[in-house]
């Protein structure tokens, strides 16, 4: 029977779990978080076990990551914990072995991670608290524009004259966007500038780490096609893409580390 490893990633908005057998992903699950990180961990773990027809005891070694990682380990749901930075680097490089730089933009933070050919962390940088480079910024802007978050990317492509958002502060951006709307500006033109602002902000982090090819993007914002395209334009290269949901990369990385720690390959 294959030796199985688990990875649990409890973030601020969603939680994921991945089960890995020696060679591949045996199953994965994703849920919206519950008020308590432990409940989230338990629920998502049960979901993936159910999906794969396994019992908790079948997992040889489990690693937790993300916001609730320490608590999850303390409660015995995992045997070790790692930072989400290592987890994302590890997961992304395993999925695409040529990847050396990972741009991960979640709801609360943005990080750029550089890894080696084994997926080990070489350098990283995270934004410092300002919302302007995170998913939260896009959420606020989508709300101000009165469109769904998922529409913000495609809407950009209808822009004829993208506007210039003079500020990068999310509070003032909201004021400016309202100002444009009052003047009758086209929503698509505003959306294009919002996405461009987001990409420019993230580029500052990319420069700090000194990005190396290939580069990929993970986290919720990776789903925004316009931000991806802007980043590609600024980087001058194409971002490589995955065959799996980019949100499970952290949990996958944790499962890969569980395999290393638990004596798997």
């Amino acid at each position, binding site marked *: 029977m294959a030796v199985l490893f688990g990875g649990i990633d409890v973030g601020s908005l969603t939680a994921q779990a991945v089960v890995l057998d020696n060679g591949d992903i045996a199953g994965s699950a994703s849920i919206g978080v519950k008020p308590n990180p432990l409940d989230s961990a338990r629920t998502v773990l049960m979901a993936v076990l159910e999906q794969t027809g396994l019992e908790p005891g079948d997992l040889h070694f489990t690693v937790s990551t993300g916001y609730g990682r320490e608590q999850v380990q303390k409660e015995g749901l995992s045997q070790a914990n790692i930072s989400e930075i*290592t987890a994302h680097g590890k997961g992304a490089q395993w999925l695409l072995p040529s990847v050396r730089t990972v741009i991960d933009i979640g709801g609360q933070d943005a990080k750029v991670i550089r890894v080696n050919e084994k997926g080990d*962390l070489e350098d990283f940088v995270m934004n410092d*608290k300002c919302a302007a480079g995170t998913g939260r910024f896009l959420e606020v802007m989508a709300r101000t524009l009165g469109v769904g978050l998922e529409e913000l990317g495609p809407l950009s492509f209808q822009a004829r004259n993208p506007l210039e958002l003079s500020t990068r502060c999310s509070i003032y951006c909201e004021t400016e966007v309202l100002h444009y709307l009052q003047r009758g500006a086209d929503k698509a033109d505003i959306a294009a500038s919002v996405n461009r602002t987001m990409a420019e902000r993230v580029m500052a982090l990319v420069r700090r780490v000194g990005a190396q090819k290939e580069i990929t993007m993970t986290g919720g914002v990776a789903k925004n096609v316009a931000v991806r395209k802007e980043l590609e334009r600024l980087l001058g290269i194409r971002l490589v893409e995955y065959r799996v949901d980019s949100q499970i990369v952290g949990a996958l990385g944790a499962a890969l580390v569980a395999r290393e720690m638990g004596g798997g390959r």
Partner: protein
Amino acid sequence: MMDLKKLASELPNRYVEEARERGTKIIGYACLATPREVFDAGGFFPYRIRGMSVTRTELADAWLSRFNCGFCRSCLQLALEGAYDFFDGLVETNGCDHLRGMFENWQYAHPRDFFHYIRVPHLTNQDSMDWFVEELELLKEALEKHFEVSITEEDLLAAMSLQGDIADKLRRVYESRWGDEVRVSGGEILALMTLEGSAPAEDFSRLLDEVLAEYPSRPPLKYRARLMLGGSATDEIELVSELESVGGAVVADSFCFGGRIFRGEEPLDGPPLRRLAHRYLYNLMCPRMFDDYARRKAFIDDLIERSRPDGVVLFHNKFCDLHGVENVKLRMDLEKQGVPVLTLEKEYGAAADIGRLKTRVQAFLERLGK
């Protein structure tokens, strides 16, 4: 061993209570450029102002703006709340723009009877040295006049000698971490360093005796990696302890509540105040000094060589100009030397910020392969 962290978290602490009972005058100061021997010699209790990780700063925010450093805002908040009303006087130094603002507002909004300003030069040369000697003479005269005491050369020499003994003892504890076995945590060292400024010299010396007698019998701490810390002024003992909880043992630091307390020797001859002026001015390892980066860098290199950290974590408080810039240069230079560096911006005292910082430090340890 006594709980150093608990003792360091008290304001006022038992030393303040005892001093007040004895009638000892307590003088508040903030910056390492303040030669405490002058106060010791006059029978004063010099008390180093701390922010105590306070984060509610509504009183201070009426004076300092939200663009000023959180540490100074917290210190001012405590002052305006009356937490430092046990001070009989206040001594300002021009440490940095934020600190100057802190003192200026303190004295404006909640004045102390005795207020004196030591103007510390930003350069080390003969003219500034002469100026600083005069400044110390003016301080001595001001204390003598206001409090009707006399500070003799003998008093100064005795105070300098006692501080020399204290530095030797403190160094033994501090450097005990430089072998492979670490028995005193970084959180405890920071607590001890803050106590250096909130206990009278004799009491602190006795406290060190207790620490020196106790720590060797402790079991060594378990750790994944050895870290050196550096950056903005901080007395956040809890923060350092929390960061250590992810597996990094702090073995050295270049904080001003920390490694910068150790100063080189002063010249052996000359009047005591000149010797003190030399000792304080020429060993001020703070980026507020100009044309002095090489000396600060050599100080850090020496700490790295002797304490053998696996990596260096450089902090700056949000809005701290001096360390914000210094850390850019230090990171560039240390990385060039092959020393792994993590730079972190933090909000002073913010417990909510600790999780964010821990994640980064944990990732740094993982990056170090630990």
